[in-house]
């Protein structure tokens, strides 16, 4: 199986690569459109600022292609937020695959939301079949709960811990950093 991690200069690609290597899969890191399109499965990671990340995607000509992918795609953290229409982080137009606005947490609790938190399954899902176990989160912006939400996490406000729309799967938490529970999610994605 050919697994490609979109390598566009926005964070945690090494950690994600190592996590799949521990599962016996050797992913290719690439920002080449042909390479990405030829993959069986695609990982869309991301750490950092939404606007900086979108600028990178645009500079590398990737922002038009990602929404056209038809194979299973797994967005992680900022990768999930960028699938939305718009982000309040830098008032950034995103990829528009999911018609939602990414919002900033009101700091009634500490922000960033950093650490291990539980999630609640919103609907049955092949990848995110979490049984209320804890996952590792680090973020200051969130995707509101919407029709595509598969798991909900409650911190300051209930928000989407994971979503799925067609072939696009995405999670706010870091499965590559979430111990055995996270490994199972990556395995589920590989098994699609």
């Amino acid at each position, binding site marked *: 199986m050919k697994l490609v991690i979109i390598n566009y200069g926005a*964070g*945690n690609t*090494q*950690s994600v690569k*190592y*996590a799949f*290597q*521990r599962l016996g899969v050797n992913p290719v890191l690439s920002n080449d459109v042909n390479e990405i399109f030829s993959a069986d499965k695609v990982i869309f990671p991301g*750490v*950092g*600022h939404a606007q900086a990340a979108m600028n990178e995607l645009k500079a590398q000509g990737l922002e038009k292609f990602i929404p056209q992918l038809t194979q299973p795609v797994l967005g992680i953290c900022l990768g999930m937020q960028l699938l939305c229409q718009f982000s309040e982080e830098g008032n950034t137009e995103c990829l528009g695959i999911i018609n939602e606005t990414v919002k900033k947490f009101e*700091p009634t*609790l*500490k*922000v*960033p*939301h*950093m*650490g*291990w*938190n*539980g999630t609640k399954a919103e609907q049955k899902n092949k990848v995110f079949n979490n049984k209320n176990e*804890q996952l*590792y989160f*680090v*973020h*200051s912006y969130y995707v509101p709960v919407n029709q595509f939400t598969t798991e909900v996490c*409650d*911190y300051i406000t209930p928000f989407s811990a994971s979503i799925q729309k067609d072939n696009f799967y995405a999670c706010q938490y*870091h499965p*590559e*950093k*979430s*111990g*055995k529970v*996270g*490994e199972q999610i990556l395995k589920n994605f590989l098994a699609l």
Partner: protein
Amino acid sequence: MLSKRIIPCLDIKDGRTVKGVNFVGLRDAGDPVELAKLYAEEGADELVLLDITATHEKRKTVVELATKVAEQLNIPFTIGGGISSVEDAHAVLNAGADKISINSAAVKNPQLINELSEKFGSQCVVVAVDAKKINGQWFVHLNGGRIKTDLELFAWVQEAEKRGAGEILFTSMDHDGTKAGFADEALAKMNSLLNIPIIASGGAGNMEHIRNTFINGKSDAALAASIFHFKEISIPDLKKYLKDEGVNVRIV
């Protein structure tokens, strides 16, 4: 509900784990990667690795360490020790570390906090602070506590937050190595002043101390080294105890 975090800290010199008692008299407690993996399996929520190797090839050794740990570890980890520039931080984060911790470098050049948080996001910038109480006032110390500064602790951590620190790792020099409990009063005060997570460090001697720093000190995370390295406390036992005490923790 967000869990309180348990963070074993590995001091690393020349590729081996060590732990100083009051930062003097180092003892060898093993291979960092093996130890890191063991802690992850036992339920540690995060790890901090402090590289105390002092060589001119500092960055290279720290990057090697970050790479080895990132390859093997399935929980987040922070690398500290010798990170004093955006380039150092970039190399370590790029190798797979989740966060970097800066201490003396931030005091000497506070602008570094701004630069790091703007470049990499505040979530990966941990500002470590060593402090000692002198005549009723807490002062920041440098170089593992050897050099006193005129910086007042609470003013400094507030400045660090304002400049973009994502987390504070506070070590009380008065408590470190004593195994008599954390500086919970100072921690609770710090918590009331800041809106970023605080890691308590220095003084863990038993499970009750850790409970106390979560409940009385309002700490978001508790860091300890020797009590874990020398198996005085096992992480599964600690988590179970904390849960029974009503502290929200992650049980694996």
